[in-house]
């Protein structure tokens, strides 16, 4: 009762009769003081207004959520595509470095062997190298190594293939190689070699006394997609 009297000092709604006083009884006086225009008959929202308001806000929020979610998904796809593209460019740079660094006077230092795995090309390119870029390590013992860039199943009996290099000492048997994985999930790999004397692209290179002028590499991430394609020159093909 004392509280009611105190509130009447700060706010005195003009209401008529006992019913009006009763209707205003549950309102805090300070709230009503902020809204002088509500002092009259209308003192709040109807349930319909609140439901419509909440509905509109809900629709706007759902639309925004979908918009943001789709943008984030697109951002993720774009980021993955950029990473894949950068990985492919890195692979091309690596192979370019290897081809540029082939020993000038050595014979039979580049070979290309075509293979098919499950109807898709799974070619190999093999070169002779020493510790450094071509081996992807400078910590190996100083000797001649045979390095093969190719794809192979990720695990035994796996359909998933990965791209990498096999490296072994030239003096060791073919099966005694060490596998270095460079890229996972590769569907196919193809190499072609341009023979400057013939003027044609060959699928195999086994000419020990000469080198191709160009090497074309195609890498398929997925079988139904267009491959990444790059043509790389072999600078030393003229110096023989």
């Amino acid at each position: 009762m004392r509280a009611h009297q105190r509130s009447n000092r700060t706010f005195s709604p003009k209401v008529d009769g006992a019913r009006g006083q009763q209707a205003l009884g549950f309102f805090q006086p300070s709230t009503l003081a902020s809204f002088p225009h509500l002092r009259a008959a209308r003192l709040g929202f109807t349930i319909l207004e609140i439901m419509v308001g909440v509905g509109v806000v809900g629709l706007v929020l759902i639309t925004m959520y979908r918009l943001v979610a789709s943008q984030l998904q697109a951002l993720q796809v774009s980021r993955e595509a950029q990473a894949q593209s950068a990985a492919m460019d890195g692979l091309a740079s690596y192979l370019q470095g290897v081809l540029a660094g082939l020993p000038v006077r050595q014979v039979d230092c580049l070979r290309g062997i075509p293979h098919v795995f499950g109807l898709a090309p799974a070619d190999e390119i093999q070169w002779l190298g020493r510790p450094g870029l071509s081996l992807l390590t400078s910590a190996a013992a100083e000797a001649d190594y045979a390095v093969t860039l190719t794809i192979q199943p990720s695990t035994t009996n796996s359909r998933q293939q990965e791209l990498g290099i096999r490296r072994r000492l030239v003096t060791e048997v073919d099966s005694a190689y060490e596998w270095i994985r460079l890229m996972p999930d590769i569907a196919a790999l193809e190499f072609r070699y341009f023979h400057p004397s013939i003027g044609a692209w060959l699928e195999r290179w086994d000419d020990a006394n000469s080198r191709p002028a160009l090497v074309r590499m195609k890498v398929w991430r997925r079988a139904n997609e267009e491959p990444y394609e790059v043509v790389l020159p072999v600078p030393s093909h003229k110096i023989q």
Partner: protein
Amino acid sequence: MLFEAMVATAIFAIAVIGLARCVEAGLTAGLAQREDSRARRALLNWMRELQAGSQAYSNMPLGFELRGEFTGFRLYQSVITLELEDQNKQKVDGILEVNLELVWNAGGGRGSKRMKFYACPSAL
């Protein structure tokens, strides 16, 4: 109260839509960058094939469609024989100026990339 809440929500929605447009613009820029990188690689591949003798130094004013990864690109090639002289005023023959232009459709617009280089096919 309801009106104020709706105005606030509208302002928030406009801000989020603005942010989404920024992200979209970033994605479009990324796509354009990838197209540009692909076009550069297509031109480099073609230049290397020309230099190695795999393709001919000939004028192609109508251009032609590339295939494989570069589907959607149209390549135009023009070759100009340069008339140059050395320091003794002797004619230097066999030097070509090669202009390559790659054209493609990019997001309703037209993208293009050009490359110019000099070649001496007789030195192959």
